[in-house]
């Protein structure tokens, strides 16, 4: 370890700032351990299963990667030795020990390799990659691709990203369906459907219609403002291509609200999306064309439509309503007037008698080079011209000569050109370079950096600009890299980064799956959505506005949806949860998130709402640490230590009984926890966990404020639950009286928070735990932090700037 790193590490531990390294005699460090630690952490039933005697230094110890880190933090924060130990080290002894711990003479923890591990993309990354590379409607990873294991520090951690036969089989399935979209089997046009509508059983509630004289009439109005068909399976394209749609229809009366002839818009819908309200959201549907329908008698009209495999054609009566009134606008009062008038007047109506879908009659433009062999050029030339751009996006780098040859050979070996191209596209989808994030030399070079950065901030593949910079070996230039990081953060795709952090750091993933099975908790689906959205919006604002990372600890603003405001007790009239849910379900619109200025809350707001600033006030964080029924002070304490202060709290040893989850009426949570801490097996860790958790006790299992506990089921009604006590003392003597104090406490140790956050970001980007050297890099970042704290975006930029150092040096770009 270099001198600079040792110094950085010393500063890290708050020891001997500016003093040249003192004695680093190994005997001193080991002496500390044997004097203060080994009595409990020795060979004989070591506490928490942690041995700190001589065996801890042997290779067989099988040390968890971060064990010595944890020992350092505990000694630094005077959590260890425990307070009840009579023999306490002096401050200078602690400092010397900490110094020794990170020195060359100190224990060598088993380090992860310092390269970026080869890892498979996460499910989300793979899905986004396929959609980006094969940019065709309906391309997605099939459901049969297993979900990633939920319990890793971050989804990107390589050890959790196994590739089983099930994964590959799902990818093979995806490869065939994607290849069909580019190089379908020979064109066999056929009649998909010809039918009189009177024969169909059309029972959907999502279209306005009436049957009359064997016609289906598109008319009237319904709640979704969808005046059109949703006949799902009846007009489905079996494969991608151009289809002929023929309609026998008439208008009655003949003009729409705009005074022009009635028009039927044609839209593509994928009936496999079962989210019916979404389907009716016309603005999001691909528009295929338009047919004008004239009055008089039923006449045949036809047009060509381009459909992807599995899509169905739906029609929509375009000028039934003024076009400004989209679905969802129907809740607006001014529209009620329009609707009332519309009901009185003769409604513009299209009557459909019969229709027919025939095809595919031609290939889509996209498909032509994949299915039609151009005899004017060499086979290899056509194959590469067609496939290479696709392959380079899929691999996130240029192809090697070998890979190019292989593509050509795949096509050459097939009995037909189109069949060969089909195979070649499939080979790209299932290929290892697509599935794996590979930054090993010499293939990846700077392209590895481009991918690393893009998957870090977008959860998706790098775009052309990043690849272009990589091609010129300019991306690792510190200035360029910083610029690019900022560009990526400003791009809409960075929402994946925010969502990922909200899910994996702020508890959104737990809240998504939280089953609130308790009538004593205020809960509804719109409340859930609000809680999830509030965390994303809060994180998004701090990042997008580049606010100080201190804002994450405490802020003068937060976000809340209407149901959340009701639960928090902000003044106003609120409907019941059931009404809010019903309205959201009918209209398809979730209650909007509003930004709350905590310094200027309306009069009558309960005082505790003003404390909601920062991530500790986010309902997702508070709810995620419970199980939907009970809040858990212990899990909250662990969360704060782990997620805010960067302490990796070990799981309780096997021998320790779990705290009974139900609260007996005659003992308070504080008393229970005190009993818990009285057991010496628990005391050490819980001396720190419990007070932090207790400070958050005034927040219930779903993140709402409470002054009393809910009563256990079965108690007589009218009896009140016990009053919540939230006073606690930390091992270092600081006392906490609630959320406010806890935030102040974290604010007093801003460097710990920054260190924790930077290390999280770094770990997320690398997909593994940090090495000692990398921890020192993080510490150096912390040391350089401006007094007001890094801007969040600035910190991300700083962390991204570390990435080139993790990639093998001297690996230039590939020759093309």
């Amino acid at each position: 370890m270099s001198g600079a790193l040792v110094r950085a590490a010393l500063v890290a531990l708050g020891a001997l700032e500016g003093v040249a390294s003192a004695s680093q005699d190994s005997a001193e460090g080991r002496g500390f351990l044997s004097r203060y630690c080994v009595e409990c952490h020795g060979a004989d039933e070591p506490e928490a299963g942690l041995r700190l005697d001589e065996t801890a230094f042997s290779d067989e110890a099988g040390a968890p990667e971060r064990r010595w880190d944890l020992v350092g933090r505990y000694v630094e924060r005077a959590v260890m030795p425990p307070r009840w130990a009579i023999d306490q080290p002096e401050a200078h002894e602690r400092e010397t020990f900490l110094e020794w711990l990170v020195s060359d003479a100190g224990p060598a923890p088993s380090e992860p390799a310092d390269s970026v591990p080869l890892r498979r993309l996460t499910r989300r990354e793979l899905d986004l990659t396929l959609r980006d590379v094969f940019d065709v409607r309906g391309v997605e990873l099939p459901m049969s691709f297993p979900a990633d294991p939920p319990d890793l520090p971050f989804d990107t951690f390589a050890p959790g990203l196994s590739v089983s036969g099930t994964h590959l089989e799902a990818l093979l399935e995806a490869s065939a369906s994607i290849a069909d979209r580019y190089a379908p089997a020979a064109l066999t046009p056929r009649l998909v459907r010809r039918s009189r509508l009177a024969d169909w059983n059309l029972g959907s509630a999502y279209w306005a219609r009436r049957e009359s004289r064997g016609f289906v009439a598109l008319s009237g109005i319904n709640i979704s403002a969808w005046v059109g068909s949703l006949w799902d399976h009846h007009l489905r394209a079996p494969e991608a291509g151009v289809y002929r749609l023929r309609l026998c229809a008439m208008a009655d009366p003949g003009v729409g609200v705009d005074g022009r002839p009635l028009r039927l818009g044609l839209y593509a819908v994928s009936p496999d999306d079962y989210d019916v309200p979404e389907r009716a959201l016309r603005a999001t549907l691909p528009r295929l064309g338009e047919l004008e329908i004239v009055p008089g008698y039923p006449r045949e009209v036809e047009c060509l439509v381009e459909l992807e495999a599995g899509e169905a054609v739906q029609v929509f009566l375009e000028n039934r309503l003024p076009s400004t009134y989209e679905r969802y606008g129907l809740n607006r009062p001014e529209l009620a007037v329009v609707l009332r008038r519309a009901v009185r007047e003769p409604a513009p109506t299209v009557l459909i008698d019969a229709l027919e879908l025939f095809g595919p009659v031609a290939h889509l433009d996209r498909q032509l080079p994949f299915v039609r062999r151009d005899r004017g050029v060499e086979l290899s030339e056509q194959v590469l011209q067609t496939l290479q751009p696709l392959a380079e996006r899929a691999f996130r780098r240029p192809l090697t000569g070998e890979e190019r040859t292989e593509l050509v050979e795949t096509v050459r070996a097939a009995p037909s050109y189109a069949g060969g191209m089909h195979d070649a596209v499939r080979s790209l989808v299932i290929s290892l370079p697509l599935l794996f994030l590979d930054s090993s030399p010499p293939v990846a070079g700077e392209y590895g950096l481009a991918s690393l950065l893009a998957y870090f901030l977008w959860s998706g593949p790098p775009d052309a600009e990043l690849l272009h910079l990589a091609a010129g070996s300019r991306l690792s230039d510190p200035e360029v890299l910083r610029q690019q990081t900022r560009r990526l953060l400003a791009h809409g795709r960075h929402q994946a980064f925010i969502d990922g952090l909200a899910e994996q750091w702020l508890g959104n993933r737990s809240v998504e799956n939280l089953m609130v099975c308790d009538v004593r908790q205020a809960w509804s689906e719109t409340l859930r959505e609000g809680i999830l959205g509030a965390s994303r919006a809060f994180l998004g604002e701090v990042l997008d506005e580049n606010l100080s990372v201190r804002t994450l600890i405490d802020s003068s603003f937060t976000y809340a949806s209407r149901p959340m405001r009701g639960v928090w007790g902000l003044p106003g009239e609120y409907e019941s949860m059931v009404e809010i849910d019903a309205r959201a379900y009918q209209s398809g619109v979730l209650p909007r998130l509003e930004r709350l200025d905590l310094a200027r809350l309306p009069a009558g707001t309960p005082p505790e709402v003003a404390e909601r600033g920062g991530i500790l006030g986010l309902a997702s964080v508070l709810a995620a640490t419970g199980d939907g029924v009970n809040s858990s002070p212990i899990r909250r304490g662990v969360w704060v230590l782990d997620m805010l202060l960067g302490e990796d709290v070990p799981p309780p040893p096997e021998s320790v009984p779990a705290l009974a989850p139900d609260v007996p009426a005659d003992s308070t949570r504080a008393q229970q926890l005190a009993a818990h801490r009285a057991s010496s097996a628990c005391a050490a860790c819980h001396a720190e966990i419990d007070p932090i958790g207790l400070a958050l006790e005034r927040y219930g299992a779903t993140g709402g404020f409470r002054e009393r506990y809910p009563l256990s089921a079965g108690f007589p009604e009218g009896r009140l639950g016990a009053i919540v006590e939230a006073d606690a003392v930390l091992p270092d003597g600081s006392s906490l009286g609630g959320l406010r104090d806890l935030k102040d406490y974290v604010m007093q140790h801003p460097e710990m928070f920054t260190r924790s956050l930077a290390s999280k970001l770094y770990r997320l980007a690398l997909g593994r735990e940090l090495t000692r050297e990398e921890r020192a890099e993080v510490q150096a970042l912390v040391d350089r932090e401006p007094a007001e704290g890094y801007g969040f975006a600035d910190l991300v930029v700083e962390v991204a700037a570390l990435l080139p150092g993790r990639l093998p040096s001297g690996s230039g770009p590939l020759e093309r």
Partner: protein
Amino acid sequence: MSFYPPSRRAFLLGSTATVALPWLESWGASKRSLRAQVAGSGEPTLADRLVCVSPLLGLHPHQFFPGVQDPVLRRPLVEAGLEGQFTTISGLDHKGALAGAHGLAHALYTGTASPSISLDQLAAPRLGAVTRYESLQVTAGDSQQRPTLSFTKAGVALPAISRPSELFVKLFGAGEQGKQREASRLDSGTSLLDELVGQARSVRARVDAADRDRLEEYLESVRSVEQRLARRREWVNRERPEPPDGFALPDTESTDGSMLLENADLVWDLLTLALQNDTTRVVSFSIPMTLRALKIGDRFTSSGYHNLTHHGNDPARIAELLQVESRHMRGAARLMRALASTPLGEGRTLLDSTVVLFGSAVGDASTHVRRNFPLLVAGGGFRHRGHLACAGVEAPNEMACDLFVSVLHRLGFDDESFGSSASNLDRELT
């Protein structure tokens, strides 16, 4: 299980039965496939099929175990004339393993909180070697939680088929055109896999040891997929059974949670057909949890399925919950009845050679008790006596996995342990 005195467990006998034959029974399986089954089973007395079912929201325990007069949830079994063919078991669970309120619902057949292999997947390679599908994982529509029950050795959760129509195609195919398409896809897929081996080798040459391990795992998976494709290829041209006359899927399909019961009914029938036709011998079926209200008869339940499980001892809500859960039991009874009516020759029925497990890792959903799982084992040639009461909390060494060890023994495995098992129930059940 010699260290438990037999007095700790008591056998109870169910009450007398009336028999109502379900319509599936009359379908049976074709003679051809049944002959194949008899020829394929080596040891006639052992069971060689396994069905693992779990309603993820549990079953109301007071009407599942004997104890009250004529328990509501046992009626469908009795009415189907299944007495003597099933045993419910009380007092067993996964003990220490705790997670959030519904956290362990999917871990019934693994027995551990950490991802590990599930019972069906352990049995599948051997039992399923002779059928079109080594195993099938099924659920019924959308779920609020991950609806999977099946896990591989590496802890990968196997996604379950959630649409009855997809299951239908698995069983009966997609016509001649679908067959050709599948054959050509499998052929090209197999040759494409060869390229992956080359790709992995070239990467392996330039990465460190941990990465090399990951590539080894990858190559192993490639090899396993090759075997799966070869197997599928072999089956492509084999004749598929026809769906029985009168059996058709409804015109529209919805996976919305509110359609849970309708979808589950279809799944029960399709699984029955899969077993009768010998399309697969290993099945897991999770009856998912949903927040939506369900349709009973022509009206919807007064609140969502999940809410109903938190009935607060309100008799009206319990009655509604029991209507929902009775549908699950009727589905199970219909499957068992149909298997029991399918002769395998030598006086045995398909149910005799199929171990049907039905239970939940939720002891009582109303209070999130994760003790005393409702468990039922049927068929498989076990010695069934209606009910087996294990000691429950007083016996910390009696685990739900003990039952699974005995199931493995019944299926011809000689494993002495599985998941969190402490022993087995061989003495009680055989």
